[in-house]
């Protein structure tokens, strides 16, 4: 079971706590997206899973094994970085082979692996090129290729599409989804782009200010947000949120009364925030 379990994970820099006790279970083969505004702690959480940041408190389990003190190389995770982190002095093949050579994989095995993954990603014609001679989309594919060749238990993506233009981003989203379906590797993906989160995720984790606000499938979060933050964060244009008071049959908002299906009876007079998505207007 290559699941990832976070239990009470805390990250603090001195007296400043930035992640406040996160609990999250990512099942094997699941594609989970951490989404939230800038500075909400999603990248820090991902980096703690990768081993690039120390965990101040709590337990991180990968594949049933506690990983808090385990070196990144021994966690069997592969990470795709926001700026691709490609070695500018190496060509595509050598970039993809870097981790394998470090692990002293036999040369012929490296070649076979690189050729297979290059084929999957459509990189075969570019294996001799350096990153500077590639387009943004091709670089992104090389970065993913470098992660894939390792055959890790977990893929970690840190805003991998944020440097691409809108058209390429849509294309690469589909490609990542296709790859995940094909490889079936547990994936944790960080983004601030809710469209990416909604289209890629099996489950979305909405984070704010170092805390998890809600975890659920895209439609659960969209239709039944747990709080006003989640309601406002997901959806474009965002949900309209209006303050009012409950009545026996609905809610009074200013001069208007809105009928609400459900049990409002008996709660009349209580303050309420009514959320209506733009799509909800007939």
């Amino acid at each position: 079971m290559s699941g990832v379990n976070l239990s009470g994970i805390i990250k603090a820099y001195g007296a400043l706590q930035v992640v406040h006790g996160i609990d999250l279970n990512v099942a094997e083969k699941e594609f989970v997206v951490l989404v939230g505004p800038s500075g909400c702690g999603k990248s820090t959480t991902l980096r703690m899973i990768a081993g690039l940041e120390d965990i101040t408190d709590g337990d991180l389990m990968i594949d049933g094994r506690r990983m808090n003190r385990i070196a990144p190389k021994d966690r069997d995770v592969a990470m795709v970085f926001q700026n691709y982190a490609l070695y500018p002095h190496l060509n595509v093949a050598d970039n993809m082979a870097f981790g394998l050579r470090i692990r002293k994989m036999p040369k012929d095995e490296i070649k076979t692996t690189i050729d297979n993954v290059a084929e999957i990603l459509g990189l075969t014609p570019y294996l001799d090129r350096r990153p500077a001679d590639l387009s943004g989309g091709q670089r992104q594919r090389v970065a993913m290729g470098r992660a894939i060749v390792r055959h890790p238990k977990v893929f970690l993506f840190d805003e991998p599409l944020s440097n691409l233009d809108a058209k390429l981003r849509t294309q690469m989203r589909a490609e990542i989804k296709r790859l995940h379906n094909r490889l079936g590797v547990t994936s944790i993906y960080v983004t601030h782009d809710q469209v990416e989160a909604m289209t890629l995720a099996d489950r979305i984790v909405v984070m704010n200010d170092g805390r998890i606000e809600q975890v659920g499938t895209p439609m659960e979060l969209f239709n039944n947000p747990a709080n006003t933050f989640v309601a406002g964060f997901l959806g474009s244009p965002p949900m309209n949120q209006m303050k009012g008071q409950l009545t026996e049959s609905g809610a009074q908002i200013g001069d208007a009364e809105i009928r609400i299906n459900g049990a409002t009876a008996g709660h009349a007079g209580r303050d309420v925030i009514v959320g209506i998505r733009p799509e909800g207007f007939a």
Partner: protein
Amino acid sequence: MRLYDHFKREWQIYAMLLPTIIWFLVFLYKPMYGLQIAFKDYSIFKGVADSPWIGFEHFKTLFSNDQFIRAVRNTITISFYNLLFGFPAPIILALMFNEVLHATYKRTAQTIVYLPHFISSVIIAGIVITAFSPTAGIINTIIGWFGLDPVYFLTQPQWFRPIFVGTGIWQEAGFGSIVFLAAIAGVNPSLYESAVVDGANRWQMMWKITIPSILPTILIMLIIRIGNVMEVSFELVILLYQPSTYETADVVNTWIYRQGLQSGQYDLAAAGGLFNAVVAFVLVMTANTLSRRFSRTSLW
């Protein structure tokens, strides 16, 4: 008109450039007028303009002069040792500083190795002469502990080059490491993070990421260094050498100094200087072309 508009709009930038242009004109271009005496039978009474032309006569004299040939050979040999040992030293130092994680220790070590750069060459030479003194020098004191006779290092030709090159490294390696440290600081940190996740250790990261990433800077510095091959630290040679070590210590610049200023043969000295400059120019052009061809890095 467009040029006028451009100057009008950007005059502040050109005003800032002006001191440098003046410096170049006064100290580098105007003296070139005097270079013509390399082709003249120069007389201080007739002046530069009125001295008669004699073609390449001084160059013929130069290349038939054993002392000049020896000076050229010494210059090239000392420069070669400087390149071989002195050029990698600041790179190695920068790589070592980069691996030091303790901030206070790192800052202290850096300050200590930067300091000799700010000491005048006269003081440096004084320290070296004292350190190698056969009577009170620390080196000979240590040699004495082993029951050996003192060595007169600075009077023996075979010791001049190691002492000179070593002193140069001690004086400049620390300060020279700054440019490489800056290059290292410019390496994308996520390259290291990616390598850490891939399983690379610090040694592998240094060889496979840091050094290749700063290679363009190394090559640029090498080109500049090659351009200065004929410019062996004149002051330090003058301060450390003596007639008994001329055999290995006398370089083109000290020869020019002795011929030009001490013997009054300004025209012959100018020919020697011009030869020096032409060789340096050819070297820097060659290094630049080779670097551009093989590494896509060049000064221009």
